[in-house]
């Protein structure tokens, strides 16, 4: 008997917890409001199913609990009922899947006007690279990484000379401009995760992954690593600031390009290394 009551309490408690608890996602700061809507729709459907199943169960336990002289019905199956339930379930599942796939299509289709921004992760810090005036990122290679060239940018590639390098510092992004985040790791798996942007993707050494989004709100947001990357995983933090157009431009002007950072003296040595690596491969 107590169990029937507890089952009802589980449903009531869960629904109340959902409605009243202060724990909910952080206010969104990107264009991915569709993801939030799909999530809310999923909450409604699954919440209804959970309540219905558990309340029905509570009723059964209350109504059909053992009493003296009671006998259970003999009812091997009911094709009609089972078919209906299957059909309703399939419709419910489709109702969640269809919008999900629709939004996923948008998620994987990067708009043509998106600016590329490269994030480079290593144990346990974040660095960034922005394309310079030419709008193109130069090529890179993990084999070229050393103290003078921490991101492994190819010094032979003219596209890379004007790339803006932000090593272990904050990233700034202009508001309302779509960005394609190119994600690169130089050691282990990491995951560039800003809860307010909703989007995230693993960074895999040896390849470049990506996702895109449009920042829709200015402010300072914390970057966390969301893929276990060793003992410092929990402390691998960074800052992304979404700026107005003017603030962004003034920040960008203070940054140094790859050519400025390496300086003419070092470029020769780096180029030799690049040739050596190219010959090796």
């Amino acid at each position, binding site marked *: 008997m107590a169990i029937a009551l507890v089952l009802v309490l589980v449903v009531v408690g869960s629904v109340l917890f959902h409605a009243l608890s202060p724990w909910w996602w952080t206010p969104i700061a990107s264009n991915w409001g569709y993801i939030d809507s799909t999530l809310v729709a999923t909450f409604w459907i699954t919440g209804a199913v959970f309540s219905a199943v558990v309340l029905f169960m509570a009723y059964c336990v209350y109504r059909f609990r053992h009493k003296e002289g009671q006998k259970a019905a003999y009812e*091997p199956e009911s094709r009609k009922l089972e078919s209906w339930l299957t059909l309703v379930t399939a419709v419910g599942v489709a109702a969640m899947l269809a919008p999900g796939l629709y939004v996923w299509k948008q998620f994987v289709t990067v708009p043509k006007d998106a600016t590329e921004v490269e994030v480079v992760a290593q144990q346990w810090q974040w660095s960034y690279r922005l394309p310079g005036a030419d709008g193109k990122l130069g090529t890179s290679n993990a084999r070229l990484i050393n103290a003078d060239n921490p991101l492994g940018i190819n010094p032979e590639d003219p596209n890379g000379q004007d790339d803006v390098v932000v090593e272990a510092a904050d990233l700034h992004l202009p508001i309302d401009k779509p960005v394609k985040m190119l994600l690169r790791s130089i050691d282990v798996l990491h995951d560039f995760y800003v809860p307010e942007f909703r989007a995230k993707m693993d960074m895999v050494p040896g390849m470049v992954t990506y996702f895109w989004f449009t920042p829709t709100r200015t402010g300072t947001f914390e970057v966390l690593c969301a893929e276990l990357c060793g003992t410092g995983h929990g402390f691998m933090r960074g800052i992304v600031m979404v700026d107005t157009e003017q603030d962004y431009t003034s920040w960008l002007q203070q940054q140094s390009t790859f050519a400025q950072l390496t300086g003419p003296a070092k470029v020769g040595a780096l180029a030799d290394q690049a040739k050596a690596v190219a010959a090796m491969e």
Partner: protein
Amino acid sequence: MSAILIFLALVTAVAGWWLARQRLMSKPWLEAGPVNAFPETEASLLHPAKLGLGVFLAVVGALFALFISAYFMRMVYADWQAAPMPRLLWLNTGMLLLASVALQCAVVAAHKGQVDNLRLALLVGALTSVAFLGGQLLAWRDLAAGGYFAAENPAVSFFYLITAMHGLHIIGGLLVLGRTNVRAWRGERPAKLTLTTELCAMYWHVLLVVWLVLFAVLAGWAADFVDICRQLLS
């Protein structure tokens, strides 16, 4: 993961064919009644050891299909360079083929009760298998002598890894085959050796097929074949 999915599709087909004969659509609550009513759905008289070996070979098949899947997945990366194939492998393949043929002869001999033929065939099966293993070791030595060690080139790493795995399975089989040999040469009657001989033959046939597929994959013919199929389709 295409290789393992194709393999699993085959397993599913076999399982589905068998399940289709088990009256899964029947309503068991209506069928309370005497034994002998549903003869096809009873456990069959196939010897459990044969079925057990069959299931085990399906597991072995899955294992090697997964190695092949990994091989194909790794192959598409930029640093891939095909490994040289020691020519000795052809001889080894011949040895394993001989072993398989010999064990098939042993099965025939066991059924006919021919003691001498059985002994001879079992011995030839065991010796050619040992020769296969020895040949594989020599092939390793050839590769190593050519400067191909397991670490530098992934294709070579795969070669060592996959041939080692296959060799370990042959060694496992040789334990049983060795025991069968001892029993045969100590004068046990062929009738009592039929089952173990049949099991050995079945195991060797499958490992031969596995080896042929692995050889084709490691030598690169399988990849060429897949490419040709792709071109035909597109």
